[in-house]
């Protein structure tokens, strides 16, 4: 099996189980208390997410990282049950590395997309039981087509390419409308924005989501907590430092009062 470079298969042979339902399905509802977004800008793709983790009405943690680097050229932003999402990211990270190291070539971008939907499919029983639903946004640089791309998924593993932007999580309905408005009637389409403008939009969008969705965390200036914003370009994944986010937040997001 190793000859095929399939790490997930190797794990299964060793008795690993992914996505087993923990309880029987009842009237289900997918809890995705989060806001994540990905949009195409001039040099590639920007992916951003808030940092709040909740359990019901309780705020569990305000420093969660929901925009996770899987390798140097791909990022998965997660909405849904964190335990399953982090496990998925770990499986993917090892799968891509294992493939590259055994086959001596990078897994193709399409191969990476398939790996994500395969894992989601394996996870369907847990998702339907209400204990493990994950609705990710996957973004990466496709070297063959020389462009950065965005894909979003439903909990069953169906994959959709986003032409301009994608959103997920409980705060997403709020910002979906804004994205449509800005992209269609704003001064310029999102895809032509320079890096800094795209980052300002991301910060404003997440602030809007936090305004209307209690499960989305906003900026906490006292604790110096800012969203996670990553850029995907031909050169790889780049994280925007907190200092830059702080500067942009103060000058472009806050209204001078």
């Amino acid at each position, binding site marked *: 099996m190793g000859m095929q470079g399939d*790490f997930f298969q190797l794990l299964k042979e060793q008795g690993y189980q992914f996505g087993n339902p923990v309880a029987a399905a009842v009237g289900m509802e997918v809890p995705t208390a989060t806001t994540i977004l990905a949009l195409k800008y001039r040099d590639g793709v920007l992916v951003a997410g808030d940092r709040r983790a909740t359990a019901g009405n309780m705020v569990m943690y305000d420093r969660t990282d929901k925009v996770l680097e899987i390798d140097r050229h791909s990022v998965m932003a997660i909405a849904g049950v964190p335990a399953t999402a982090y496990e998925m990211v770990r499986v993917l990270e090892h799968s891509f590395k294992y493939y590259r*190291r055994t086959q*001596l070539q990078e897994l193709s971008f399409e191969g990476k997309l398939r790996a994500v939907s395969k894992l989601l499919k394996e996870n369907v029983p847990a998702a339907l039981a209400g204990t493990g639903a994950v609705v990710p946004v996957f973004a990466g640089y496709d070297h063959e087509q020389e462009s950065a791309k965005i894909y979003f998924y439903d909990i069953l593993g169906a994959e959709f390419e986003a032409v301009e932007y994608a959103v997920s999580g409980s705060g997403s309905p709020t910002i979906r409308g804004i994205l449509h408005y800005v992209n269609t009637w704003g001064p310029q389409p999102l895809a032509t924005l320079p890096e800094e403008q795209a980052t300002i939009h991301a910060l404003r969008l997440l602030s809007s989501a936090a305004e209307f969705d209690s499960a989305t965390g906003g900026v906490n200036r006292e604790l110096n907590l800012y969203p996670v914003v990553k850029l995907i370009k031909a050169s790889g994944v780049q994280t925007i430092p907190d200092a830059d986010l702080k500067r942009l937040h103060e000058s472009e997001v806050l209204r001078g009062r």
Partner: protein
Amino acid sequence: MYEEPYRWIEAVGNRRQYLDEQFAKGSPVVALAYADGILMLTVSRGTPKLYEIYDRIALGGMGHPADLEKLRFSLLEMAHVEGFNRSPSDVTGARLMKYGLAPSIKQAFEEIYKAPFIAKILLAELGVKPERDLFLSINYDGNFEESRGWAALGATSSVQGRMRRYVESQPAFAQASLAQAVELALCTWAVGSLAQAASDTSSGESSAVHASEEKTEGDASVLPDKAALLAHVRQTVAEKSLECVLLERRGPGSAKYRALRPEELGRLLPPAVSTPATT
């Protein structure tokens, strides 16, 4: 016929002789720690001999490509399952060597009805701090050793001994730049390659191989000078390809392994190698 102990010892002895011959035409592998990480270098004919095993572990090999592949796959499988089930920092070169490679190589070597692995392997592990960089090398019989600072694979222990003498005669390189490290590695490789070529032509009478090796080491204690070594590299590189990989301490992401692209390596080569011969 191998039931009697001395027959078995004789068979193992034959096996050693057979295996030693298999490596005579192989290309030595050199790995050394420099200022920004670890560099591993060899010369290959087509099939690569340097590989990525895990985030901070690189492999260099000598021997039969099929055997190297088999061992490489078993290491990859062990490293990734362990790194996933426990954590990436639990995947260490020492564990891979002691529990992954050594037992199977030793068993294959001693099971005289079956084919042994025609392989010598060098693992380089990038530590979190430079003083924890580690090199592990294993011979075809399952004997392995650890070293710090640098390590090399050569066809025989006397070839490796010569490479050791050369490296020890050079100034300290722990703070060397990448270009300096490449030059030192190339010269060390050439010492090994020349020693192998010399013993290959002089080992006509196989019975006296060991004695003559000891002798040549005693006689030709003068190591070739840098110009001669680099000339040998230039000559070899004209028909084969130079392979060089790095484990970069400050590289982006968790995987620190990077193979140098030919044009990048070209810029790092000392002028005596990169400029064409004038004669």
